[in-house]
């Protein structure tokens, strides 16, 4: 069997994928298999008993939001009872940052891969402060979620419905030339997002104040575009998934307890090991003792060839991960060693417009002992405190070794 050929096929599909944000819809009306008693979460599968603080908080918040529970204690009891089904977002064509909890009535972005026809989903970004994705579930958190569902989502949905959608791949190509890497830094991309949304949303607004609130909410949040970007990366990764004989990684995700990967030629099997604590800078008053182990589906960006893999494009944020712009370039150079191809559409000016390193090859990771770099936010280990820093993390090497062994078994090597 020719693994390199299979990998080339997988990565060609990843790069050819053209994810376009076409709509915003309720989760249970769009995400396949979504139902009232199913909560999706970030990372590989996990049961309540092993969930970390931020994920538990987000589960409680979602049960309160869906009015399945009336207070936190009841929510925890229900969550522990088995009455609620938990599943990875990834198993439902979805992704969510941090805790990544999606419940049935929540609004989600719908991204369509125009090349291959499949759809992917992500929730709406809540901005900063006390937010569900860091496990907060106080009344103001739930109030904000309600407004997002009832005010923000319809406005975006209507605006997008009257448009040809927003080409996220094109938006990312541009943002990478404006200092973003698409994971930790989405400042430029979020402003591009606002620029594209404004003329869609404004003409349909019945109430100028509400339209202003919607656009300001998008514009004030430098992470607004992260969720559609993640859904777009998921579309690209899914396009590469399921290629027989391919060792390309098609999902990297963390649930706050475990780090998991999936591999194109190994169907929907997860390979997991305990997630590590990111190495980075902490906000004033916090230290690594406050950090939760790595959490969130946002590593789908690195899976698709941006994020830390495009670090050379984002020298402004090197202080989070190391020090100098030279280190940013070195980070990207290192990732070329474990990837199959260079991206046709995502290019890096400082590297003479070389394409970003795309398509992690399990073989290269194991052979060189070089694991993928991940840029990430750092969550507080207790529910609801929020983000305490940002930095760099790498998945445990052993999950790639597990995957290689499974690959050998699956293909009789």
């Amino acid at each position, binding site marked *: 069997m020719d693994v390199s050929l299979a990998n080339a096929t997988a990565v060609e599909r990843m790069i050819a994928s053209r994810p376009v944000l076409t709509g915003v819809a309720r989760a249970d009306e769009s995400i396949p298999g979504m139902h009232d008693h199913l909560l999706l979460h970030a990372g590989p599968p996990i049961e309540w008993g092993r969930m970390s603080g931020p994920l538990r908080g987000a589960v409680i918040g979602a049960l309160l939001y869906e009015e399945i529970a009336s207070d936190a204690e009841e929510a925890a009891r229900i969550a522990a009872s088995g009455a609620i089904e938990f599943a990875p977002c990834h198993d439902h064509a979805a992704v969510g940052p941090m805790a990544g909890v999606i419940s049935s009535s929540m609004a989600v972005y719908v991204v369509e891969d125009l090349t291959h026809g499949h759809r992917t989903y992500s929730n709406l970004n809540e901005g900063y402060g006390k937010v569900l994705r860091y496990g907060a579930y106080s009344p103001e958190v739930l109030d904000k979620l309600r407004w997002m569902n009832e005010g923000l989502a319809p406005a975006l949905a209507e605006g997008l419905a009257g448009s040809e959608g927003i080409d996220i791949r094109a938006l990312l190509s541009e943002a990478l030339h404006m200092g973003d890497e698409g994971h930790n830094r989405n400042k430029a991309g979020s402003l591009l997002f606002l620029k594209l949304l404004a003329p869609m949303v404004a003409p349909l607004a019945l109430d100028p104040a509400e339209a202003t609130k919607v656009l300001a909410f998008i514009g004030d949040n430098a992470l607004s575009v992260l969720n559609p970007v993640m859904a777009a990366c998921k579309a690209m990764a899914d396009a590469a998934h399921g290629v027989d004989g391919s060792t390309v990684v098609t999902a990297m995700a963390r649930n706050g307890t475990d780090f998991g990967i999936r591999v194109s030629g190994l169907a929907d099997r997860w390979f997991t090991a305990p997630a590590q604590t990111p190495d980075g800078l902490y906000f004033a008053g916090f230290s690594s003792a406050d950090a939760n182990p790595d959490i969130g589906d946002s590593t789908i960006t690195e899976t698709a060839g941006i994020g830390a893999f495009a670090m050379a494009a984002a020298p402004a944020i090197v202080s989070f991960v190391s020090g100098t712009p030279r280190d940013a*370039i070195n980070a990207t150079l*290192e990732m070329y*060693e474990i990837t199959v191809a260079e991206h046709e559409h995502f290019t890096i000016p400082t590297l003479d417009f070389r394409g970003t390193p795309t398509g992690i090859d399990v073989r290269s990771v*194991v052979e*060189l*002992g070089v694991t993928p770099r991940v840029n990430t936010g750092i969550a507080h280990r207790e529910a609801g405190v929020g983000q305490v820093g940002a930095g760099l993390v790498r998945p445990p090497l052993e999950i790639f070794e597990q995957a290689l*062994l499974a690959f*050998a078994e699956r293909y009789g*090597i």
Partner: protein
Amino acid sequence: MSGLVSAVRPGAYRDSIVLMQLQVALTELPDVEDAGAVMATPENLSLLEASGLLPAPVPEAGPTDLVVVVRAATKEAGEQALDRIGTLLRRGSSGGEGGFRPHSLEAAARLTPGARFALVSVPGRYAAGVAGQALDLGLHVFLYSDNVGVDEEIRLKRHARDAGLLVMGPDCGTALIGGVGLGFANRVRRGQIGMVAASGTGLQAVASAIHELGRGVSQGIGTGGRDLSRQVGAITALQAVDILRRDPETRVIVLISKPPSPEVADRLLAAAGSTGKPVVVAFQGVGQKIINGPEIGAGSKAAGGDNTAGLHFADDLSEAARLAVTLDAGGAVDGRSAWSATRSGDGAPASGALAPYLRGLFSGGTLALETLLKLRGRLDPLHSNLGTERSVELEDPGRSRGHTVLDLGADEFTVGRPHPMIDNDLRVRRLRQEADDPDAGLIMLDVVLGYGAHPDPASELAPVIAEARRPDLAVIAIVVGTDEDPQETDAQIELLEGAGAHVHRDVSAAVSHALALLGAPRDPAAAAPAPGPPASAERPAAVPAEAASEPAGRPVALDDLTQPAAAINVGLERFAESLAAQEVEAIQLDWRPPAGGDERLLEILEKLRR
């Protein structure tokens, strides 16, 4: 009282050279007597045990765990040394200036498209794999690593020959490519003498002598010590002879090897003899006996009957240099020229009252063997660790017996420790050990200078020599180097002489002096040549012409051997530093054992690569 303390760092892989540097740094700390830092493979743990550094209980650690052991005068001093491990390791990890260190050869090749050579000095178990990857990338390979299987050597060399590439090695210490030294190499003027050498030190000694005699070297191609064996069949040497034949800059060819397999020597000499260029042959211990032809006198006659073309056999390395220089200069021998073979103290023996035995402490096998061959018949019995039937093999190389000639670069001394050309510690210890033996009357040692070697060996050896000398113990040093070497050869010699050593620039002079000092009987066989190995006595008189055909495979492009602009270094950082000092861009790989050395994963990767 002294005791052992140890620390285990799980999963902290470090290259052995880094660990050696750590060991050295640890032993320099106050009250530390000895230290060991190894990845905890069973072999490495047994090495610790052999050095009396295995802590009890044996630490629970595996091959991916770093074990550091310190023996110190006090437990506190030991603990304090262990506390420094992190700092010392960081100090050793250069890479500053933000330079990117790729992990894979592919990435390195992409970053340095001008690279034509890869220098490989990783542990032998991985070396063939790295060399194979380099060949696949179209790179010539300088393979310093030893412990590479002969089957792998043959496979690599055949592959290389088919691709028009060279595999210099395994166990190749030296090459001079387009005027640039690879590995351990002296700074030698460029000139018209092309060399093919199965011995790194041999190449260094002859190239240095050529330089000191006022001529220069066009190319110095290393082959590795086993290339002229029957199994390997001189694949690299034949390629090298073919290169020198075609190279318009090369006018004289020198072949250097330990005794080759007779049939291989046959082929090689046939090829060399048909180059149309004069060829000097220095096969150690074989000399002119390799051919049954006309008697070849020192430095004058040639097998071809004419003085400028054909094969000229040299008895030793210095004669090889002199012959080459003579031929290069157009025939006239200027025996001494600007270069004095003997530096100092070759006058009368001190008092004739030296203790009886000679002890040779050599940093490599070539000069040790040459010394042994010249002493043979004069000092008996001779003991050594050279594995030759021409001496009595020492049962325990750790203890000399009677007259002893030691290769301190041999595996039994260097596994897990730096090579004595890099680190003087082993020789310093052994010098002291010999000096403590009242029967030791003469210590001989070599000091090999040049790129890759210790930056200032005399500064460490001289004080010990001064300490070791006594009225009945003399020291003779053979200094191999040129006036352009980074260590400043003259200053090194001055230091050694200042310490009371007699300094010579080649083995012949050193041995004559040693024999005189020891009052050895005159050579009973001085007039008659020493017998060669049985097989070589039957060499045919004439070189069969049909054997002199082109080597099979693709010829190596001569352009590849012009001054290299860039090279990729995998392993010893010292080699990259040497290249940088010669203004060659050297990209250093951040190399780790593939798949962490896990056999099953490696097997899978190998199968998936096909």
